[in-house]
């Protein structure tokens, strides 16, 4: 991830991960891939940020982890959103919308 983008991501990485996991249980690699795809390559999450974040979210009880077989038959750690995580995500989404709206408003009005 490049320097400039890192600034945006700092507080929002947790939110993005939760949102991706909310689409369905997934392992770390797939989460990073999905994030990159959906954001059209804007977010390229480094492992050094991704895995600490995943473990932190698991620690807080927002994600649950389970070892399962992938399609290729290999064992991988799959993350699922917990009920607590879903609640948190919803709250965060509302916050995020408010924030972006407010920022947009300021930017537009101040022109």
């Amino acid at each position, binding site marked *: 991830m490049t320097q400039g983008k890192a600034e945006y991501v700092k507080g929002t990485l947790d939110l993005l991960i939760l949102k991706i996991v909310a689409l369905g249980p997934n*392992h*770390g*690699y*797939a989460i*990073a891939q999905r994030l990159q795809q959906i954001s059209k390559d804007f977010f390229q999450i*480094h*492992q*050094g940020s991704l*895995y*600490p*974040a995943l*473990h*932190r979210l698991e*620690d807080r009880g927002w994600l649950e982890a389970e*070892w399962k077989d992938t399609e290729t038959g*290999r*064992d*991988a*750690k799959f993350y699922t959103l917990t009920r607590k995580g879903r609640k948190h995500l919803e709250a965060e989404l509302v916050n995020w919308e408010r924030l972006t709206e407010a920022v947009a408003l300021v930017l537009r009005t101040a022109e």
Partner: protein
Amino acid sequence: MHWVRRLFQKSRTEKHLDEELRFHLEQQIADYVAAGLRVDEARRRAQLEFGGLERVKEEVRDARWETHLDNLLRDFRYAFRSLRRDHSFSLTAIFALALGVGSCTIVFSVVYSALFDALPYKHFGRSVVVKMHNLANGGDLKDRKYFSPEEVRAFREQNHVFEDIIVYHGFRPSYDNGHFIHNFSFGMLVTTNTFDYLGVPPLLGRTISQEDGSPNAPPVFVMNYRLWQREFAGDPKTLNTTFILNGKPTTLVGIMPLQFNAFGTNFWEPFSPDQISGSLMGRLRPGVSVQTAAADLDAIAHRMHKANPGGIFAEDKFAIVPETLLDSLIGDFKKTLYALLGAVLLLLLIACSNVANLFLARATARQREIAMRATLGATHGRLIRQLLVESSVLASTASVAGWVLAYFGLKVVVALIPAGTLPEETVIRMHMPVLFLSLGLTILTTIFCGLAPALHVLRGELQPRLAGSGKASGGALGHGKLRAVLVVGEVALSLVLLTGAGLLMRSFFVLTRVDLGFDPKNVVYFQLNLSPSYFFKWGDTASIKNSLEKKNALTRQLLARMQALPGVTSVSELNNPPPLTSETSDTIIPGKPHAERWETTIDECSEGYFRTLGLPLLRGRLLSVDDASSARHVAVVNETFARKYFANEDALGHKVKFGNLDLPFVETPHDIYFEIVGIVRDFKTRDYVNPSWQTVPQAFMPYSVAGYSWRSFMARSAVDPKLLLKNFGQELRDLDPSVEIAESGTLESSLHKFYRGPQFELVTIASFAGIGLALVLIGIFSVMAYTVALRTHEIGVRVALGAQQTNILRLVLLNGFRLVAIGVLIGLLASYELTRFLASQISGVSATDPLTFAAVVTVIVLVALAACLLPARRAAAVDPLVALRYE
């Protein structure tokens, strides 16, 4: 619970993390291969992107809480190891802290128990007792606490400051147990709201209720635990039995728990509703100050006085002075507590400087270790956490040691507190808030002392410290200065403490070694407990006269029988055994007007008084047997009386009147002028409040003029006087079996009682000063030893260049003494300012007594010398060859 599992299956967690990250890597490689890269190229690129596997793992671990716990445990292990390795440091620091914290815990416990948890009563902090203070120059009593029914009613109805008011009045009824009638204890008449006001439930039965106060209610009373145990062996069947009190059948309806001891009496009876008079206690509304209450009550009292002049204070010159209940109970002990608090805080400061000093020395020695760890990648946060853990391990150990010390120390202190200084309800023990306070204090101290030097090291450049030899490097210089400041501070603080202790000691010697002017050896005294047959009816002149004659007859007969016993040298009747003065009276001498109040301590006694005490006659004559038997209006006065009131005249032959005898409620003939017939030498007296000895105007009249029920006797003997008490008791029983001996003792033992208050303060403060001195000794020693160790190289060079052992000795000693001298100077200035606060508690010696100051300086200098000597000798013994090779 998967987090518990994770904690205990660390290897599994690690394995899973490894697998998870490897899976990621392999997926990436597979994707690159699928995109058309060669396998080795794909692996290279994926690995490059991934960065170090270990680094990612480390970052993941940091995100998980069990790692922090793990690190913390590791920090604890490391802290224990390093404290054990440096055990002389650890033990000294723990010792100093434990002494400081232990002493603080003791004093805090006493202060907390005596000021904040003293009484078991509801909101006792807002309870005030009301006193009327006489502002007139002449006239009657100085204070009065008794309020008439009209005054009580006015205060109850018109005040704006109290939530609730209770009234109580002491009485001593006779008790007819079917065999004989006697006074079994002191009781109180109380208003019916009293028990509700105090808010303590009864142990058995019930308390006095509203209905008990109604005019036709059957008489009831409530008993305290002590009397119940003493007289009735704690038998629950005593409850609801009927006692004949003052000839009136009264039912015991309740027994109060041991802690309940309101007004220091043994039982409580309700007032009859139309006779509520006595002492007043009120609970202030929340937020109302004692001053506001004083103004409100004062206005009521003055309004009453204007509407209806007269009463005890004839003039309109009086003030209502409320005092908090606690103040009225512990009074001057509060000052002692504040002095102790001051002393113990000084001690804590000394202990802190000591610990700070030790930590500084240690930090300097550890510079290299810290610099090394920082260079190897330990973050500042990590290092600080490590040091914090170390500090808190030390603090906790010291706290526990301090508590153990305080637990035993508190027992000693409680045993030392003189009986009667604290209310009987007060139990001194360690309270949780106090323990937490002391723990907090210790942790704060250690963290402050431990972390500050470490931060100092971290802030600076690491490189030179790493390169330097760690001990002799330049960084030590800054610390050296700080250490010197700490030593100076310690010496100064300790000097203040020692001066306080020294002044108390001097004052104590003055107090106990003073020439009292009378000879207390071999004198016993006892007080009579007269039975109701000696009492009189209020307002019945015949009954009063009869009572007076009966009392005087008993006194005369008892004196004669006592005198006849073998071994008895002389006997006397009196009001109060010296040196205590209790009855102070306004003094009126015809033809001698005076602006200020003239006060004389009066005593009604028999002719043997002067001989029994060994008071020499200076002029005129003493009281004679005839004076006593025919109640002549004559008086013997002391030197001070004659000098103060008759300056250049001869006092003999003049007449004098004492205001107390004219008081309306005293069983005395009024308006008597006594002729002064003799002058005796002064002796020293004191009262309950003021600890110092005083010489006051005194006058002695024949006991037979007044009909007091308060009768005391004393006797001087050639043998051990205590043996005589039994014989006196026998003689008394022969005369009248209904009269008993109440209190008794020797004059010497009652003198010792006065010394116990000052003794308590002296012993505690002197102990703290001693501990402080020991800490200073350790402090100076450790700093000097450290400085010598630092300068071994330099000393080696000096010796190699030809310095003599004596030169080296002088060098080190001078170095130490410079610090001590500055400390002594600062300490002297501080003492000069601070001992003023002790002035009210010392007597016979000035608060800036030069002798005490000189002695204290000598002690400090000697201790400092001892502390410097060992390191100095070690320095002088430095072998230059070893010293130079040392680097």
